[in-house]
């Protein structure tokens, strides 16, 4: 059994390392110390943990102001409330103002499973990727999470880091070097392409194994950065394989699949299948159950890919 890891641990550990090295690093949260795994940060730097209470609009404005005052704020809050509740603040105070703030959406996608659609964050790619200046990233495992957090700190730009709490295996190679806007080729293949990000990359790789047993060679791409997109990787897939399946823990509307379709349709049209939450409020179930139900089990992804490969 492959060990599964909660990416929040890698996030919290890396944030601690950054805070140790740079006294300007501050964490901003909305009573989310536990869910954002900020307990150690709070112990080490109590004054640098800016907890505004349950007030997301203020949280984002405060982060913008901290950045103006020379701090490097990491806003750590549950993704649905961080994005949905404070979207206009993210637009005006962060993206339009080009505030050097890192928005860390914790427990994104359907991580809160049974708590229901109020607590699901399957709209956040659409809401954030439409905003100019904002980098949007969903790391696939704890290795990529740690590197993305570090890259966010080193890049003077607003960044939305979409982090999951669903356990995922280590899938990125040890020598992997994350870069914004650069997709990772996880597996070579010429028959069909599967592009995924976040927790779906591991499932996409499992789907490629199923396809391989059927004699279908699937290319698997980890498109961690939703904005800016790695257009070259998409165009190569469109040219060199028979079609593209996209998988994301997000609505099929406006997310990773939509972003890729925008590139494909205008530069190299090819057949696509967009897997995600099919434009409904999800029924009760765990994240894993819901991903399976919406056709994103390894078998479901393989079936969609097989349809394009033949």
């Amino acid at each position: 059994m492959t060990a599964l890891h909660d990416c929040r641990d890698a996030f919290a550990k890396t944030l601690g390392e950054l805070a140790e090295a740079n006294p300007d690093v501050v964490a901003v949260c909305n009573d989310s110390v536990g869910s954002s795994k900020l307990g150690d940060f709070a112990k080490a730097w109590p004054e640098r943990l800016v907890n505004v209470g349950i007030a997301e609009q203020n949280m984002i404005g405060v982060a913008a102001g901290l950045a103006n005052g020379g701090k490097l704020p990491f806003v750590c809050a549950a993704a649905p409330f961080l994005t949905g509740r404070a979207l206009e603040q993210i637009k005006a105070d962060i993206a339009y103002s080009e505030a050097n703030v890192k928005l860390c959406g914790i427990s994104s996608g359907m991580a809160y499973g049974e708590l229901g659609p109020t607590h699901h964050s399957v709209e956040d790619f659409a809401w954030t990727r439409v905003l100019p200046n904002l980098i949007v990233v969903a790391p696939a495992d704890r290795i990529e999470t740690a590197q993305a957090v570090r890259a966010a700190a080193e890049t003077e730009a607003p960044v939305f880091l979409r982090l999951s709490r669903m356990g995922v295996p280590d899938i990125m190679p040890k020598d992997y070097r994350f870069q914004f806007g650069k997709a990772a080729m996880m597996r070579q293949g010429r028959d069909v392409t599967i592009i995924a990000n976040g927790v779906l990359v591991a499932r996409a790789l499992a789907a490629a194994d199923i396809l391989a047993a059927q004699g279908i060679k699937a290319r698997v791409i980890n498109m961690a950065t939703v904005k800016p997109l790695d257009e070259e990787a998409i165009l190569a897939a469109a040219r060199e394989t028979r079609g593209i399946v996209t998988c994301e823990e997000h609505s099929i509307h406006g997310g990773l699949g939509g972003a890729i379709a925008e590139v494909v349709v205008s530069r190299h049209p090819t057949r696509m299948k967009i897997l995600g939450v099919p434009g409904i409020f999800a029924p009760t179930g765990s994240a894993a159950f819901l991903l399976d139900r919406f056709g994103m089990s390894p078998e479901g992804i393989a079936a969609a890919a097989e349809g394009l490969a033949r």
Partner: protein
Amino acid sequence: MSLVNKYANAQPVTHRLAQIANRIRLRDLEMVFTAKAGHIGGDMSAIDVLTTLYFHVLRYDPAKPLAPERDRFVLSKGHCAGALYVTLAEAGFFAAAELKTFLQPLSRLNGHPNRTKVPGVETNTGPLGHGLPVAVGMAKAAQLSKASWRTYVMTGDGELQEGSNWEAAMAAAQFKLDNLILIIDRNRLQQGARTEATNALEPLADKWRAFGWSVTEINGHDFGELIAALSPDVAPVGQPRCIIAHTNKGEGISFMRDRVEWHHKVPSAKEYEQARRELEGQVL
């Protein structure tokens, strides 16, 4: 602290501020008339506060608009960008000649201020209820850094109907931000009607006191009262400060004063001439 307000010791202060404010009002009137757009009523109510801040209180160097130790000013009522632009030009952040481009195609002088384009602007405002939270973050940054710069923020009064302000009000008191000064432009009018007929704010001072702030009420067109209230010497320890500046929309122009329709109406040629004559007659 190397930065100072280079105007602060000129005498007599109130007379000099009145002259500057009058000049800013004339330029703002001309700018709105030329552009055929703007928010002239709220500009006129805010100008005496802006003048006192930029020509007596704030420590800044227009040649170094991003100097880390500068005092911050946030215009939360971003629709009154016109008043801010004229004030920033008067203070030397950019040439007054550029004011002619206000709202013209591709001008950086947009209808709402943009920090990445206009020197002296600290954060992009326009949607209401954004300035105070950002100012709280600025003041928190100075507190964490043990820096002596201060943060000033001006909101409208109607704007206080946005709940985000009250989130920020709670946080500022919780964080004991005695380096934060809020000025409320209390002109009693919002876009469509009187605040009290729309979604009443009173008892406004009591609300801020209940939220843990130190509150002062002043005549927002009296430079003596403005100087006294905005002085850092009167800051209470461990408490953010709220100054309710009682003002009039359209202050300085008789037919605009306290009239709701002048929220964003543009004067006709005849009205422009009358307004100009009235303002010129007020030069001391």
